[in-house]
């Protein structure tokens, strides 16, 4: 009986020690700053490259833990995801979802949780309203002007090559996703620079943008030109839908010389254009599928973001969480622009692809550490973000 008591006592003591050790260990882990990341796309190549950079590089080099949402397609889902993150103890939210950014900002401000926009920016009205919010860190990414310009330059490059027969893939224009609307508007505006060409009877960029927001699509009947042909339009990602598939095939069957894509063009059209002379121009990221497509000539133009381009917004968030938020000279939130890398050949593509990887990102710890600290000026941060890092 005594022996049994001893065994029980030792077991209880060991259990208590183990519990204490575990508690201490978890205390150590609790020092990690939790950051919630809300995403509209969870499975696309660009989304995954961003995620890998945060989860596999940043988490290994900083005392932070990223919690990711599922793909969020509406404002209600975004709100629920942010609530979950706040409940889980997140100190900041980084947003890659844009169904209702004002609501996201308000929600984080009320909860006292820092909020930042990655790989995008607020529009002017939104920035004017939220720039002084205490917990709004800011936005770093291609501005809407850059998005517009990217679509515009893509179309201009094809026009310069003598192309006259186009199709457009608007991606999320149907959902009024700002960046896709702007890119598509840029493409149309480039075509409308020709005197005989109009869209909806106008050629003014603002009117084209307005028309796309109103219609939620590019209407082929609105495109009038004696120089160019717009023979097809497709959008969204309804892969399992027979109507969507039929429309995709009819765009390819119309034999455009090139399909100008506002994003994810290779995923949507890659299979359909194989064996044809139809080329794809796209805005996406530098992944292996694009490497194959550029090598075999299916994709002839790619404007891409690189994975670690979301490094600077992380640095800004970390500074804010540590109590040293970087603000403009006027004490306002950050609003800094980034641009795309454009590859028009496989050699160029290879150079870009090898320049930024999870193991060796452009925004690596050494570089990020130059703006993580307690006395980072706005000028230093701005230069850090806006320095052209395109591989030579």
């Amino acid at each position, binding site marked *: 009986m005594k022996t049994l008591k001893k065994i029980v006592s030792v077991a209880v003591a060991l259990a208590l020690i183990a519990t204490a050790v575990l508690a201490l260990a978890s205390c150590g882990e609790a020092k990690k700053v939790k950051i919630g990341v809300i995403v509209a796309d969870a499975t696309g190549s660009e989304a995954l490259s961003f995620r890998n950079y945060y989860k596999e590089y940043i988490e290994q080099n900083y005392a932070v833990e990223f919690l990711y949402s599922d*793909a969020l397609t509406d404002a209600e889902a975004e709100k629920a995801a942010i609530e979950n993150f706040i409940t889980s103890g997140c100190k900041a939210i980084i947003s890659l979802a844009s169904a209702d950014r004002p609501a996201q900002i308000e929600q984080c401000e009320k909860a006292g949780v820092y909020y930042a926009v990655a790989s995008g920016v607020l529009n002017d009205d939104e920035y004017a309203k939220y720039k002084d919010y205490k917990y709004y860190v800011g936005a770093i990414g291609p501005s809407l002007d850059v998005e517009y310009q990217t679509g515009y330059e893509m179309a201009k490059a094809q026009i310069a090559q003598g192309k006259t027969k186009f199709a457009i893939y608007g991606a999320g224009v149907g959902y009024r996703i700002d960046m896709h609307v702007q890119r598509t508007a840029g493409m149309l505006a480039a075509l409308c620079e020709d005197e005989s060409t109009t869209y909806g009877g106008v050629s003014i960029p603002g009117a084209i943008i307005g028309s796309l927001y109103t219609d939620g699509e590019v209407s082929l009947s609105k495109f009038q030109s004696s120089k160019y042909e717009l023979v097809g339009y497709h959008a969204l*990602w309804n892969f399992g839908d*027979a109507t969507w*598939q039929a429309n995709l*095939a*009819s765009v390819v*069957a119309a034999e455009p010389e090139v399909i100008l894509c506002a994003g994810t063009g290779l995923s949507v059209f*890659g*299979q359909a254009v194989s064996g044809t002379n139809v080329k794809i121009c796209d805005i996406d990221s530098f992944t292996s599928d694009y490497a194959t497509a550029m090598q075999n000539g299916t994709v002839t133009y790619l404007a891409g973001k690189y994975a670690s381009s979301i490094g600077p917004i992380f640095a800004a968030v970390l500074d804010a969480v540590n109590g040293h938020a970087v603000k403009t000279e006027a004490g306002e939130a950050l609003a800094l622009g980034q641009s795309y890398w454009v590859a028009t050949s496989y050699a160029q593509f290879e150079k870009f692809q090898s320049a930024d990887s999870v193991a060796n990102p452009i925004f690596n710890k050494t570089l990020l550490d130059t703006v993580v600290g307690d006395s980072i000026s706005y000028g230093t941060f701005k230069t850090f973000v806006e320095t052209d890092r395109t591989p030579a």
Partner: protein
Amino acid sequence: MNTPTLSKTKKTARGIFGTLIIPVAVGLILWIVCAANGVSMFSNAQSLTIFVRGVATVMLTTIALAINLNSGRFDFSLGSVATLSAVISAQITLNAGGNALTMLILSIVFGILLGAVSGGIYVLLRLPPIITSLGVALLYEGLAFTITKGSNVSFYGKTDVSGITTNVLYMLIIIAAVLLITIVLFDRSRFGYRYKALMAGQKVSVNTGIKEVSNAVVCYAFSGALMSIVGYLTATSVGIISVDILNFGSIGVMFSAFLPMFIGGFIGRYSNDKLGYLLAAITMTFFSMTYSALSVKSSTQSIINAVLLVVFLIYLSNEKTVKDIAALKHIRNLFKKKTDGETNND
């Protein structure tokens, strides 16, 4: 001697008319609508391929849904079975360097397994199928996401695995084979007789020695096989498997098969319900081709499909009244009653 022959001929003619009226009428109306707008349902070389592929996917999904729903088993996991079987077979095929046939066979094998597991969970837990199938859908959606580490499966540049979906003949063979196997299994085999007996009265059937558990599991497994072919056809035709279906993103597939199932059931009264599902699939694909030709927005398509479903259900629920009205019987009866009343008064 002439009377039975005439009656038989009349019955056959009625059967043919009832079987073909919906697809033929819908096809004609939509053709006129397209022509009036200066477009065509079959406007390019790819149209026939897309049409046949559409018929195949709608027919298979409809049969997969009807097999269990006819027995009162709602199966929300259909879409998730299609995605997961395609994901697993694609991963194996792409890594091992297989071809289209390899992937199709692997898809069917995994579809049968996943369907059987779904059925097994239902018979083991003895919970309402609506609950177990929702759980299975969540599980399979999560598994598809986990296996691919959240990345969509891309077939870009892998032309070896997409050979079947670009060949009309192969897809016609799939349609014919599935139709034949389904008719033999459910209308001409001992299993099928037992399945129908269970549908008609489960308690009585079980008391006569029919094993309802194994029958249900086989139904789920067969349904899984059909959905795996749907998963294969969809994946290889568009060149990508989207695993962005977490939190019930896959259950829409089941709802898309409701209208063709009701249409197929209606046609089945005049011939065979499986043939009805094929003709219903043809009808629905006419709609898809028309939407594409007329560039109808997806939101408008949803509204039209919903209205069609509701109108068809209203018709089915009030069929006798509608037929009477169409035959002016109501008016005749009213007139007759009035006349009889006047005669009696006299």
